[in-house]
C-alpha cells in the first residue's frame, strides 16, 4: 500500500513537468500581443520595447520557460499585467472560492447521483428506473448556463428568495461562513451539481445493475444475508469506481466552470480565466491554468490511492 502510493507519487513528476510545458506553450501559441492591453494605442515603439524587456517577453521561449518555471517552483507566478498584483495571490483567492463551490456542488451531485443510480440499478427497467434515468440524462445534457439563468429568473427575479450573483453582500469576494454568504452559494452550487449528478447516477446505475447480475449476490442470499446486508456488499463493490468518478468530476468542476461562474459572477477561477483571456493577461492565464492542472493531478493521485485502498483486486 505504502509502496504503491510512493510509486504513484513519483509517477506524477513527469506528468507535472508535461503540464507545465503545455501551460507555458499554450499561452504563447495563442495569437495576440500580451502588451496590447496595458499599452495606450499610440505608444511609441521604444516604450513597447522597454516593457517587453521588463516582462521578459524579449527572450527566447526556452529561456522564458526556465525562468518562469524556476519562479513558479518558488511560488511566484509573476505579476498580473492587468491589475499589477501578484498572480499567486489572485489565483489562490479564486481557487479558494471555486474549491468551496465545486466541493459543495460535487457533494450534492454525488449524494443525488448515488441515490438516483442505486434506485435505477435496483429497480432496473421499472418506471422508477425510467424516472431516475431521465433525471440523469437531464443532468448530463442540459446546458448549465441556461439552467443557471432559469434558476436566477425563478428564484431571484420572480420569487426574490435568493441573491442572483456574487459571493457575498456588496460584491465582496471574501468568503465567510454565515447564512448570508451561504445564500449566495445556493443557486450556483445547485446549477453546478447537475453535471456530476447526471454522470454519477449513470455510472452507479450501470455498476449496480452489473453487480446485482453477478452470481455472488445469489451466494450472499444463500448465506442468509438480509436485503440490507446484500445492499452493503453492493455498496462496497460499487464504491471504488463511484468515488473515482466523483474525484474526476470535482477536477472538472474546478477548472471547467467558466460559464457558471460568469453567469453568477462567482469570483473563482472560472471568472479569473475568463477575464485573463479577454484581457490577454498572459502571466495570470498561465498561473491559473498551472494551478488548476496541479489540482487535477493531485486529485487524480488521491483518487487512485483511495481506489487501491478500497479495491483489493487493484494490484498494489
Amino acid at each position, binding site marked *: 500500500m505504502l509502496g504503491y502510493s510512493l510509486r504513484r507519487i513519483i509517477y506524477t513528476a513527469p506528468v507535472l513537468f508535461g503540464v507545465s510545458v503545455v501551460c507555458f506553450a499554450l499561452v504563447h501559441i495563442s495569437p495576440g500581443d500580451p502588451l496590447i492591453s496595458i499599452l495606450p494605442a499610440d505608444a511609441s515603439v521604444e516604450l513597447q520595447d522597454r516593457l517587453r524587456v521588463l516582462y521578459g517577453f524579449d527572450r527566447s521561449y526556452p529561456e522564458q520557460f526556465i525562468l518562469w518555471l524556476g519562479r513558479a517552483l518558488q511560488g511566484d507566478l509573476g505579476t498580473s499585467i492587468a491589475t499589477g498584483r501578484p498572480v499567486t495571490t489572485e489565483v489562490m483567492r479564486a481557487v479558494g472560492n471555486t474549491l468551496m463551490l465545486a466541493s459543495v456542488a460535487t457533494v450534492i451531485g454525488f449524494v443525488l447521483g448515488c441515490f438516483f443510480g442505486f434506485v435505477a440499478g435496483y429497480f432496473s427497467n421499472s418506471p422508477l428506473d425510467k424516472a431516475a434515468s431521465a433525471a440523469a440524462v437531464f443532468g448530463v445534457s442540459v446546458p448549465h448556463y441556461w439552467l443557471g439563468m432559469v434558476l436566477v429568473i425563478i428564484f431571484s427575479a420572480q420569487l426574490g428568495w435568493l441573491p442572483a450573483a456574487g459571493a457575498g453582500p456588496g460584491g465582496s469576494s471574501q468568503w465567510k461562513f454565515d447564512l448570508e454568504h451561504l445564500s449566495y452559494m445556493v443557486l450556483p452550487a445547485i446549477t453546478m451539481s447537475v453535471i456530476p449528478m447526471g454522470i454519477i447516477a449513470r455510472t452507479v446505475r450501470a455498476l449496480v445493475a452489473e453487480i446485482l447480475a453477478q452470481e*455472488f449476490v445469489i451466494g450472499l442470499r*444463500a448465506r442468509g444475508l438480509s436485503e440490507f446486508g446484500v445492499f452493503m456488499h453492493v455498496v462496497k463493490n460499487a464504491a471504488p469506481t463511484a468515488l473515482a468518478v466523483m474525484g474526476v468530476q470535482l477536477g472538472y468542476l474546478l477548472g471547467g466552470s467558466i460559464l457558471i461562474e460568469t453567469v453568477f459572477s462567482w469570483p473563482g477561477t472560472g471568472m479569473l480565466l475568463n477575464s485573463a483571456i479577454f484581457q490577454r493577461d498572459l502571466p495570470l492565464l498561465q498561473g491559473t491554468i498551472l494551478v488548476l492542472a496541479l489540482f487535477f493531478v493531485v486529485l487524480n493521485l488521491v483518487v487512485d490511492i483511495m481506489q487501491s485502498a478500497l479495491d*483489493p*483486486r487493484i494490484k498494489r
Partner: protein
Amino acid sequence: MTAPFLSIRNLGVTFTGGTRPVRAVNDVSLDIAEGEAVALIGESGSGKSVTMRAVMRLNPEKRSKLDGQILVGGRDVMGMNARQLSAFRGGEAAMIFQEPLLALDPVYTLGDQIVESIRRHETISREDARARALDLFDRVRIPSAKSRLDNYPHEMSGGMRQRAMIALALACRPKLLLADEPTTALDATVQIQVLLLLRELQRDLGLSILFVTHDIGAAIEVADRIAVMYAGQIVEQASARDLIRSPRHPYTLGLLKSRAHDAMVKGVKLDAIPGAPPDLANLPAGCPFAPRCTLADAGCRNQPIAIQDIAPGHLARCRRLDKTALQNAG
C-alpha cells in the same frame, strides 16, 4: 423408513420473465434422508440447478413461480416469511457453487465473509467467530489456514477457493448441504480431492447432501442415490449401484452408453443420443424424451407419463419398461 430430512413433492418452477412462460421444473418429487447423499444428474438446462435453488427459494422471486411442496426437517420452505427464510438459508441449509471465484464477494476477505455469515446466524463475538473460521479452514485442510483467512478470493487457487467455499457453507453447522456442480470448474486431480472431502465431511457431520452434476463419475463417487433429470422431470431414480448396473429409462441407458470407457479403442465412434432436448417453453404433450427415443410409440407422445416403482427404491418414468428390461439383459 423414517421421515426424510428433505422432502420435495411435485415441485414445479416456471420462469415468467420472457415472452412465453418457461416450465423449467415439472412434477419433481425427491426425498433425502438424514445423512444421505443424493446426486441429481442431467444435461445443461434439464432443471437440476433450478430444482436445487428452489429448495432455498433462490430463483428470482419476481420472475419465477413455484408450486408443490418442499419440507426441510419438517418445515415448509414455501411458507416461510422473509425472516424465517434468511435464518434457514445458511443456517439449516447451505449451498456451495460451481465457480467459487464468482460466488464469493471479490472485495471481502474470506475470513470476513465467514465471520459475517456466522454472526448473521448466531450471537457470537467477532473473535470467537474468527476462531471458528480458522477451525473450519483446518477442517477443509487449507494449509497455513491462519494467513489464508486474510486472503481475497482472487488470491487463491481454484481448489483452495472451493475448499474455502465449503468452509463458508459449513460455518453455521447446516444439516443440509446443496452442492451445485462443485467440481465442474476444477482440474481433474483437484476434483477428486474435493469429492473425497465432501464424502468425508458428510460422514463425519451427518450431512444430507443434494449434489447436482452432469458428471456421472462424480455422482457415483459421492452419492448413495442418483436421480436423472431430463427436460425438467426426474425420469429415473435409484440407488447409485442399481442405476449404473440396471438402468431402465431409455434416457439413462443412452447417457451411460455415451460415456467413454476403458474398452474404447481409437477410431470407435462414441455412442450419442440423437437429437436435442425440447424447448422448455413449448413442451410436448407426452414424454419429453419421445422424439429422441428409439422405443417410443404413439402412446408415448399423447399423454404425460407417470413415474412408477420398478423395484424397492427404483423409480422410472417410462411406458416401455418391458422393452428396456430386455435391452438391459442383452
